[in-house]
């Protein structure tokens, strides 16, 4: 609440709510992930963010048969589900999750300094492995996101590893501090480091639609939108989501399509 510097915690029956004046998070135990991320009352998520293991097949992939060899990661990208949730609020670890009747002891006035919630996603590969996404919300309301992937012997090479965030409406553009143009781990020597502003969500015009738009070694990303799906929201001003690197730079693409759609 406004008068505290703490997080307001709502121990729901199928979700955990974490709120400050500016940020509102809903972590859904049913959906197995972050269902709602609202900043200044603007929703940033259309569906829960999930691990992503697939990138759109490139012409070279087709040529060398990589996408055939790695095909089970396409299934894992689309269908892997949350298998376990770990929740800690301040020093209290909740196992099992604090749902009814356990949460009957709480009230609408529960506060904390730190929430840590992890979602294990079990891949639909053979053999299966676990990929864990952890959200740590500090008392300022900012979230630190960590992802941990446990490889497994016998699995084909990973086409990509990351997280996919689907926004409710199109971004008008994004700004980042990182490398110029489109870069990849093996194709970034020619890039210049700097702040770049991109209008809209451009798709590189390769003849056959394929993986595109990657930006390596990024320190900071700011995505701008000016529309929402909330039918009662008539505000058309810009609003932004800011993503910063933690210990290492991050790589991202910001596209109007998923890998499967490309």
């Amino acid at each position, binding site marked *: 609440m406004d008068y505290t510097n703490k997080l307001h915690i*709502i*121990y*729901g*029956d*199928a*979700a*955990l*709510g974490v*709120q400050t004046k500016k940020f*509102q998070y*809903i*972590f*859904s*135990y*049913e959906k197995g992930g972050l*269902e*709602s991320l*609202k900043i200044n009352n603007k*929703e940033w998520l*259309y*569906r829960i963010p999930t691990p992503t293991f697939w990138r759109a097949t490139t012409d070279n992939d087709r040529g060398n048969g990589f996408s055939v060899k790695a095909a089970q990661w396409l299934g894992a990208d689309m269908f892997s589900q949350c298998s376990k949730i770990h929740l800690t609020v301040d020093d209290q670890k909740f196992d099992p999750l604090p*749902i*009814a*009747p356990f*949460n*009957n002891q*709480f*009230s*609408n006035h*529960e506060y904390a300094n730190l929430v840590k919630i992890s979602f294990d996603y079990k891949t639909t590969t053979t053999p299966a492995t676990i990929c864990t996404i952890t959200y740590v919300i500090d008392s300022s309301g900012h979230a630190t996101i960590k992802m941990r992937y446990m490889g497994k012997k016998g699995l084909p090479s990973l086409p990509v590893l990351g997280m996919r965030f689907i926004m*409710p*409406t*199109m971004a008008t553009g994004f700004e980042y501090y990182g490398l110029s143009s489109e870069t990849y781990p093996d194709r970034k020597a020619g890039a210049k480091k700097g702040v770049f502003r991109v209008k809209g969500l451009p798709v590189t015009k390769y003849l056959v639609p394929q993986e595109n738009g990657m930006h390596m070694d990024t320190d900071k990303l700011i995505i701008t939108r000016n*529309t*929402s*799906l*909330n*039918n*009662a*929201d*008539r505000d058309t001003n810009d609003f932004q989501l800011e993503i910063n690197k933690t210990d290492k730079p991050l790589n991202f693409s910001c596209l109007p399509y998923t890998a499967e759609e490309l």
Partner: protein
Amino acid sequence: MKANIRWLDDPETFRVNQIAAHSDHLYFKNYEEWEQKRSSFIQSLDGKWQFKFSNNPQTRPLDFYKTNFDASDFDFIPVPSEIELNNYAQNQYINTLYPWEGKIFRRPAYSLGQKTDRSFSEGEDNTVGSYIKHFDLDNSFQGKYVHVFFEGVERAMFVWLNGHFIGYGEDSFTPSEFDLTPYLKEKNNILAVQVFKHSTASFLEDQDMFRFSGIFRSVKLLAFPETHLMDLALKPTITNDYHDGIFNAKLSFTGTKDGYVRLKIKDINGQTLLDEEHNLTSTITIENKLLENIHLWDNHHPYLYQLFIEVQDSNKNLIELDSYKFGFREIKITDDKVVLLNGKRLIINGVNRHEWNMNSGRTITKQDMKADIQTFKRNNINAVRTCHYPNQIPWYYLCDQNGIYVMAENNLESHGTWQKMGEVEPSYNVPGSLAKWRNVVIDRARSNYETLKNHTSILFWSLGNESYAGENLIAMNQFYKSHDDTRLTHYEGVVHTPDLKNKISDLESYMYLPPKEAEKYLKNNPSKPFLECEYMHDMGNSDGGMKSYIKLIDEYPQYLGGFIWDFIDQALLTYDPISGKKALRYGGDFDDRHSDYEFSGDGLMFADRTEKPAMQEVKYYYGLHK
């Protein structure tokens, strides 16, 4: 008396100064009005009302009901309509969880031994609509008793007239009626209504649907002549091996008791079967009138008789003409637990139906209703469960006229209080066995019964949906049993408390029970007839394997049939900026969280009222046992 916003927090306060529920008979000044279907005793208040939206109770206008209030900053809103679909508030679709999941922590008052709190009267999510309507009385209303009649308001409302507090009502889906007479003027009356999205009633209205608020059904004024038939209770029964009928009726009058009452029953050819005169008294009882060689009412031949009640003054001048169309039909359970309608086995080829229009939500029109009846007829659908609330009154008249068997369900679902994460967890269930939550649910049963009791099409009273079971559901069942021996009661939620099955529901009702499980029950000396109150969940591209249910009809006479879930997708027609076209949108498409997303689209019909491809399968299987 003064309005008290704390009523929102109190499950024991659900109606203040409301007129007791009564029958929905039509009344006119004379036969000419009846022929034209226009009563000069009714004045519609539908249309543009002044409106102010507030995000929460703290910011609502406090003095807006006063006659000197300056409403120049109010907007206009159509009545009836949903506040959300006028884009004042966010659309939200959610199934079993409460709409405040993950946002506000709430428990129903008294459910865990605690007292009432201010969770709703100070609720951050409790949006408020303040409505003002200026009206002059029709000439025909001058000097008469006048009531205001709200057919449906979600979810709690306070009413004022000309600055005076009139009353308070909950139960979104049954009429709320108040006496305006003491404060009425001929000209420029100011009716003020404040509608709250949430109250303790929200715990009882957790239906799987878009959560709207507002005055979403019609509002009208009712004028009463010096004598008025306030309530009519018909009881037509059948005798002599289904050849003859016995007519019973109880008429209750208000106003002057100096005059006469003439009662006539006519068949569809205008032949008079009964014609009798009584001296006017408060209550007139017509007992055991034998009507020979009657036509029975059923799906194939929905034969209705015309009842007229002429209210006359002491000079035998007609002052009010009341009209009802009723049929003769009999539903009973045999010793072998087979349900018979008019002596023949009844088979329910049914659908669950939410009231829905892709543009206006639960504000639907008579055209929508007529289209749905035509769809029923075209596809051999013979029954409807009014899931999970009483429907608009004209719907029941259409079902009478078209022979549609109705399971008339109360406005009750408390799903989120007893089922969480798919598990049965009733620690804070309401109504349960909590004394403080008893009267409110019995009132819902009473309003449903008293309003709709004369509709021939209603064969079953359904206590509600997915609310678990305890003493209060037993009390609701008892209410129907003590008021109506011509219909059966239904409730599915007692499956979780099997010890109560002998006290709740005449039917063994399940939802989505696999055919093999149903067969186990049917094979094993069933103690009640068996019904699937929901089955063939028709979400998206679905509805396969219907044969496995339909063949139970041939194999087990105790299998009554079922109601498909459900009739029409709940989706909203919305402008899509990407394609530049209008597109149907569902849960989650309005930034609404938590949502249950595409679960809102389970219909045999798309939301635009076109049939899904699966409908031909329904038509085929439901055609096998027409």
